[in-house]
């Protein structure tokens, strides 16, 4: 296996872990919050999801730098690294890191934070896969912002439905 295949595989694995655990974290936290309290078992399950999510983020960051180094050695230059798609991905990852800090120190509403975190994982996935898009950086950021709002309201809908069907 060459380096390119290795780092790209790791990047995909990291993204899968991140998107998967972020989704599972939301689904399980909605399910567990039905009775209004989180017991020790439920807390442990959510903690495992958070740890997998953090592992995914670390793998994504390191493999992302690996891909960047390979691109640097091939001298891909500004066309690849100053492209709106690449810059949008970097912005999303930075938001993801910032929200992790803010949520950890309870400096942001947890519902808003979790919506931003989940939407960011999906945005990073879509921006990574959608290679043919020709949108500018600001359009991509607008789409990202829209995705955050949509995610927030979808999660709120399921939260309120979970409470009603208690």
């Amino acid at each position: 296996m060459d380096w390119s295949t290795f780092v790209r595989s790791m990047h995909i694995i990291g993204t899968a872990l991140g998107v998967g655990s972020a989704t599972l974290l939301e689904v399980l936290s909605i399910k567990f919050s039905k009775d209004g309290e989180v017991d020790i078992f439920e807390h442990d399950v959510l903690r495992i999801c958070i740890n997998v999510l953090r592992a995914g983020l670390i793998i994504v960051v390191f493999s992302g730098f690996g891909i960047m180094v390979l691109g640097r050695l091939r001298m891909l230059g500004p066309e690849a690294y100053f492209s709106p798609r690449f810059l949008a991905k970097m912005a999303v990852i930075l938001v993801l890191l910032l929200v992790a800090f803010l949520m950890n120190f309870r400096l942001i509403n947890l519902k808003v934070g979790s919506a931003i975190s989940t939407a960011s994982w999906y945005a990073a996935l879509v921006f990574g896969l959608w290679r043919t898009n020709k949108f500018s950086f600001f359009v991509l950021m607008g789409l990202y912002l829209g995705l955050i709002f949509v995610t927030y309201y979808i999660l709120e809908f399921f939260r309120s439905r979970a409470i009603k069907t208690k």
Partner: protein
Amino acid sequence: MSYFLISLLVSHIFLGTLGIVFLTGYLLYFFREDNLGFLKRMSFFAFLSFVFSWIVGGYYYVTYYGHAVKPIILSGEFPWVHKVLMETKEHIFLFLPFLAFVLFIATYFGKNIKDDKKLSYSYIGLCFTTVSVALLVTIMGMAISGAVGK
């Protein structure tokens, strides 16, 4: 570019990112109970990572970047990437091992660092500043790498 120089460049990026990961771990787990040993280890490994990233990055910069990479950037579309970002990075970068060292020493020898709220926020402030500087340096490094085109 020789394998030795590629290894230096990769090590520089890897160790710098590892330093950020250790300090992020320090920040995220600061308020957990009975984890002073963990915080000491995180701050120590972050300090080591930044020192080694500093050494290999410095060697790469002195022996290769100046004559092989800098002219490509200056003759390219984005010469300001070297003139502004690299010049800024190579100075801000100097602070990182010292900031990490202060955090390590303060964590290692500090007393009641978690009981005193004001003191604990000073530790978090120092760690957050170091992570922010490291992230800024990383973003600048990415922009510099991105400006090297054919």
